[in-house]
């Protein structure tokens, strides 16, 4: 895959720091105009969370343990969701992100089926923000109509804003200048976002850690999200 941009955005999630508090999920919902779903919708399997904390209970009382993992769009280098979209609504942008074009999406849901991480969500319901909740909608992010697929974008609106600022100053985006809502909110700084193409960036240095693993690597999707856990993935 050709790198035609100086940026290759990636995220490192340090599971030794993650407490499973879920603040990132809330922050993402607030920043990206993610729909408000009630209990009925979620029970039907139609939740709209772009970022989910996968939580499994292991063992019998009293030796019960929670295993948890924040899962978001892995922004795969070889994304299975991209070639299957018949209208190019899902495509690969030069920064290494998987872009989703809402107004092009016709809703075949092929991308949702082909995503092995099941991070893509579909607007089954026409979601509403009853007043005055509509005041909280971010003007930088579209509000998606029903029938459209959506997913985590690494807060591309913040990346765009940072690129504009950097261009105005005639420089590149500095490390740490752009942080998606989840990374910004995490109280233990478990989520680190940065330019993996810059070997000196914090994210790139963390991504070289011996504790690293990626999800479903055997599928060859080349995800841009690295997880860190002492003792490896079995110790999560």
């Amino acid at each position: 895959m050709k790198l035609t941009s100086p940026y290759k955005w990636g995220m490192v999630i340090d599971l030794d720091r993650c407490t499973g508090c879920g603040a990132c999920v809330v922050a993402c919902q607030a920043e990206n105009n993610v729909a408000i779903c009630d209990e009925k919708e979620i029970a039907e399997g139609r939740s709209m969370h772009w970022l989910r904390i996968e939580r499994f209970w292991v063992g019998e009382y009293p030796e019960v343990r929670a295993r948890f993992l924040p899962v978001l769009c892995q922004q795969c280098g070889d994304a299975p969701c991209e070639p299957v979209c018949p209208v190019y609504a899902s495509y690969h942008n030069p920064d290494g992100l998987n872009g989703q074009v809402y107004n092009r999406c016709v809703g075949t849901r092929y991308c949702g089926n082909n995503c092995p991480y099941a991070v893509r969500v579909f607007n089954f319901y026409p979601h509403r923000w009853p007043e005055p909740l509509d005041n909280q909608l971010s003007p930088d992010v579209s509000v998606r109509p029903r029938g459209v697929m959506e997913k985590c974008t690494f807060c591309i609106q913040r990346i765009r804003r940072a690129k504009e600022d950097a261009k105005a100053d005639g420089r590149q985006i500095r490390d740490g200048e752009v942080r998606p809502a989840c990374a910004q909110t995490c109280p233990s700084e478990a989520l680190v976002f940065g330019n993996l193409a810059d070997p000196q960036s914090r994210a790139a240095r963390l991504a070289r850690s011996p504790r690293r693993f990626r999800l479903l690597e055997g599928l060859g999707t080349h995800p841009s999200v690295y997880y860190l856990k002492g003792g490896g993935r079995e110790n999560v």
Partner: protein
Amino acid sequence: MSEKPVVKSAEQLNDEMLSSLRAPTWRWYLLAFFLGVVVAFGLYAFTHQMLTGMYVTGLSRPVMWGFYIINFVFWVGLSHSGTMVSSILRLSQANWRRPILRAAEAMTVFTITVAGLFPLIHLGRNWIFYYLIPYPNQRGLWPNFRSALLWDMTAIVTYIIGSSLFLYLGMLPDLAVARDRSRGWRRKLYGVLAMGWRGTAREWTVFHQASTLMAALIIPVAVSVHSIVAWDFAVTVVPGWHSTIFPPYFVIGAILSGVAAVITLMIIIRKAFHLEAYLTPMHFDNMGKLLLVISLLWTYAYFVEVQTTWYAHEPIEWEVFSFMAGKYTPALLLMLFGNSLLPIAALCFRRLRRSIGVMLVVSLLINVGMFIERFLIIVPSLSHKNMPFVWGTYRPSWVEISVTAAAFAGFALLYTLFAKCFPMVAVTDVRELEVRETEVTMGRADLPSIAGKD
């Protein structure tokens, strides 16, 4: 030339085979009305879905494809009936094909039409379906031909046009016969469609060569159409879908369901239009033999697929298969019974093949089994994908069931209308055989023989 027991004149043959073209009776109107009601209700359900949202279906994450895609694959499979039966029997010059051709070819056209509607029905934003059509526009946008769905669209358009032309071609001499026997608006309709056919020797020569060529051309198209539909699943990374056997397996399944559906239709037409003299137990015997072979092939393909999954025991694939076998055990058993056990057991016996009742049951059960097979391919794999936290289930809602019922009713309605307006049996083809049938004295016996090359 010695006398055969019953010699019918050409006029009598025409009368009997074209009996369906007579003015419709109250029973026909009642049937059309009933089918129309079911179609109308399905249209209402679809409109409701389009106006309110996809939440009225049973779909969710992760099972984002359900009954609509099951229907799509099922109906594309049924559309292999005409091409396979008609083309293969034409090319192999099997004489018993003659009364069957028209029913089979018409079935192909109407089933692929119904199938082509489902990709439009299942879209989340159906009203902008035209984004899928490649046409030059001022935004400079084109659709993505790397997507299997675009291959679907291309293949289905080709197949609809090809099979319609194939049906029309086969009907051409019969339309001329119908034209000469009718009055009024029917005469005008048949006159236009018959394109001035007179039946000169030269016209017949060109016609035969064109029929053979069309039959030869349409077979690769049919194989490619269902392979492309199979690739919708096989080119993904979904466990249980990513299998190289899918294209041949789907094609075999399509031929199985198509041939079974032709047999079902033949039985219905035979009863409805009093064609007992033309669709004889001999025809069902031969179709039964064909069905037996295809059923054996399907059993082989299914066995191969399960065996490799079981032996390699790849965790995710095995999980999907054992989930399917566990949760949907009754459906799985019914499918195996309907597609393999019953056909292979019953169709080995000549007496059973020649029994109309047995053939009806066998053919209907095959199609029930094939519908279940599509369900068991699509839903369990999506239910248990790679990330266990988002495993889910699927149950069809009233909207999806109504649309499915409307699809069946719509097909039946189209077929009923077609049978009323167009010759349901290949009249000239059947009469050609009667004309060439002769008796030859060989040694001490008088043997029936068919004069001339096929």
